[in-house]
């Protein structure tokens, strides 16, 4: 068996390693996606007071600390058996919306967008945010930087600290919002709505207005039919902060609907010998390998998955965009909802619809008088011994599960992070793209490797939840090996 290794992938958190194994005829036999795993998180936490977790877990990762902070704080509500007052719930959600705006905007302009806006075959040195700005205009650079700055300020104002907020406590929030702050937050939210609409316009003109990119969006090479997971409100509309977890089958029929606390009844983890990664699957369907369809327990939890499980969006402009996307893929509404879109590159589009939703929802919350209510905390009076909390992280459903002794000291911790949900779909998407572009030993060209990377990048994976090492050396190395593992060819390119 020949082996092609793409290592590491540009523009992803952590150090991913894609390995493509070829058979004797030079066709793709298998694709593997390996990452180094960070060790010892559970051991590190056991023995600590549970209420430390919101500030510890938000250090797991430099990318989505706010998601960990929120899932952790919600797990503490359950652990201490205390329901936060309405103002605290709204403040938490408001902060979370500011985070979603920043995270999704950053992904589009810095990570996913370059493939579409600069082009999948452009050299890596140009396929970055600067290439995007050259194409869409320098004013956009200012708009992106301003967007990040005003939302980081909102997160700092609400959460006590930028990037790694620290205001989450069991039973509520440690800081109320003043009237003055509310006015500033409303202005931030209004600017976010404008920014989201502008970004969707960019997507319209640059991606949907380009025949080649539109064809890529509809390409079968990126299609994958699986179950989908996401969080919805009581009316089955998307809610990334709170609600019930809903799973739909590849036809779009509801398969499961459960509270985060019941996740172990629905999700199990499969282990493969070639990677530390665990592959979550739907317990009631079972692990049938890296397979598509209703008979395989593989599910996907991404922005596209969330739109696929929802009956609609809870805000008006996001709802318009949601309908536009499903109709662009020829989906018809049946039984109150659209059939799922399986074209995984549409995840980029779905992400921008969520960006608009987060901006609109932020505006609703910032204009809600109740958010300035000083009653933001209920003091816990007991320890239940177990707490499970979840949110939709930008990269998928995030679950924190803690067990403690009677004093509230941790005895066990389990986390299912957003990207983990998608480990199997990611491996499958890479395989599908590889099969489309590598046939009968045909020479593998840069553009093809880029497209395999694109299959991975659309998931916005956070590979190791690590931060960084500087300056590091991350060239792209491609190794082709024969059946015995001997290197036949080595292709290198420099880091973008």
């Amino acid at each position, binding site marked *: 068996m020949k082996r092609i290794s793409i290592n590491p992938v*540009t*523009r*992803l*958190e*952590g150090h991913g390693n894609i390995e493509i194994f070829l058979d004797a005829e030079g066709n793709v036999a298998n694709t593997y996606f390996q990452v*180094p*795993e*960070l*060790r*010892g*998180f559970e*051991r*590190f936490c056991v023995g600590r007071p549970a209420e430390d977790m919101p500030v*510890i877990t938000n*250090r*797991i990762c*430099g*990318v989505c*600390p706010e998601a960990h902070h929120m899932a952790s704080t919600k797990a503490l509500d359950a652990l201490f058996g205390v329901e936060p007052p309405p103002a605290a719930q709204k403040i938490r959600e408001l902060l979370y919306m500011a985070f979603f705006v920043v995270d999704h905007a*950053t992904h589009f302009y*810095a*990570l996913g967008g370059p493939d579409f806006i600069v082009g999948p075959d452009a050299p890596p*040195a140009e396929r*970055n*945010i*600067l290439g995007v*700005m050259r194409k869409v205009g*320098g004013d956009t*650079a*200012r708009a*992106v*930087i301003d967007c*990040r*700055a005003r939302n*980081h300020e909102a997160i700092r104002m609400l959460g006590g600290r930028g*990037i*790694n907020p620290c205001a989450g406590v069991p039973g509520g929030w440690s800081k109320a919002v003043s009237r003055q702050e509310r006015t500033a937050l409303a202005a931030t939210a209004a600017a976010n709505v404008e920014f989201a609409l502008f970004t969707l316009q960019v997507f319209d003109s640059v991606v949907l207005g380009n025949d080649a990119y539109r064809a890529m969006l509809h390409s079968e090479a990126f299609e994958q039919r699986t179950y989908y997971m996401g969080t919805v409100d009581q009316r089955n509309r998307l809610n990334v902060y709170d609600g019930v977890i809903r799973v739909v089958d590849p036809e779009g029929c509801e398969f499961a609907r459960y509270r985060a606390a019941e996740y172990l009844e629905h999700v199990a983890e499969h282990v493969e010998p070639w990677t530390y990664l665990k592959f979550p699957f739907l317990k009631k369907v079972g692990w049938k390998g890296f397979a598509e369809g209703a008979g395989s327990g593989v599910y996907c939890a991404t922005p596209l998955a969330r739109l696929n499980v929802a009956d609609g969006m809870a805000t008006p402009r996001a709802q318009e965009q949601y309908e536009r996307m499903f109709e662009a893929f020829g989906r018809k509404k049946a039984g109150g909802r659209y059939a799922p879109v399986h074209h995984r590159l549409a995840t980029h589009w779905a992400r921008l619809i969520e960006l608009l939703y987060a901006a609109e929802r932020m505006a609703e919350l910032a204009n809600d008088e109740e958010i300035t209510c000083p009653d933001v905390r209920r003091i816990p009076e007991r320890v239940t011994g177990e707490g499970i909390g979840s949110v939709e992280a930008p990269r998928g459903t995030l679950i924190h599960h803690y067990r403690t002794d009677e004093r509230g000291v941790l005895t066990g911790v389990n986390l299912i992070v957003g990207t983990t949900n998608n480990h199997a779909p990611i491996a499958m998407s890479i395989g599908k793209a590889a099969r489309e572009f590598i046939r009968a030993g045909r020479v593998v060209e840069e553009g093809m490797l880029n497209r395999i990377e694109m299959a991975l990048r659309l998931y916005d994976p*956070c590979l*190791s939840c*690590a*931060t*960084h*090492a*500087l*300056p*590091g*050396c*991350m060239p792209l190395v491609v190794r082709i090996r024969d059946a015995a593992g001997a290197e036949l060819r080595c292709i290198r390119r*420099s*880091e*973008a």
Partner: protein
Amino acid sequence: MRSIVVGLGNPVLSDDAVGLRIVEQLRRELGDESDTDTAAICCGGLHLLDAIAGYDRAVLIDAMVTPGAQPGRIHTSSLAALRETRNSGSAHDTSLAVALELGRMAGLRVPAEVRIWAIEAADVETFGERLTPEVERAAPEVVKQVMQALSEGRR
């Protein structure tokens, strides 16, 4: 001239925290009256741009992993070298060189001088609040070198 010293790293990932420990020590050495600001941040790329925009000079301190290198070894580098390698920081958004160019494109004032101290790490994959001994021993030397560089810049 406005200067900022930025420590980068994850405080709970063993040696990855070395930049944060060093900047904490520098904060104490510099004192409250210093014209040099300090910051401890967890990510590079655009976050780093946000932190250093508006300053004339930036010093970055971080952990580094080079296959086969001796843990505790101190590397120094400059922005010019960074431009060539196009590396640093969180791969989730973008490299520092790209972030700085983006800042210029957006009309922000970005530091004309960026100097980097990187300490070769032994372990950046195990959760823990302690540095490994070699890295712990290297930290005071970096503090000394950065203090010296800052005082030279003032003259």
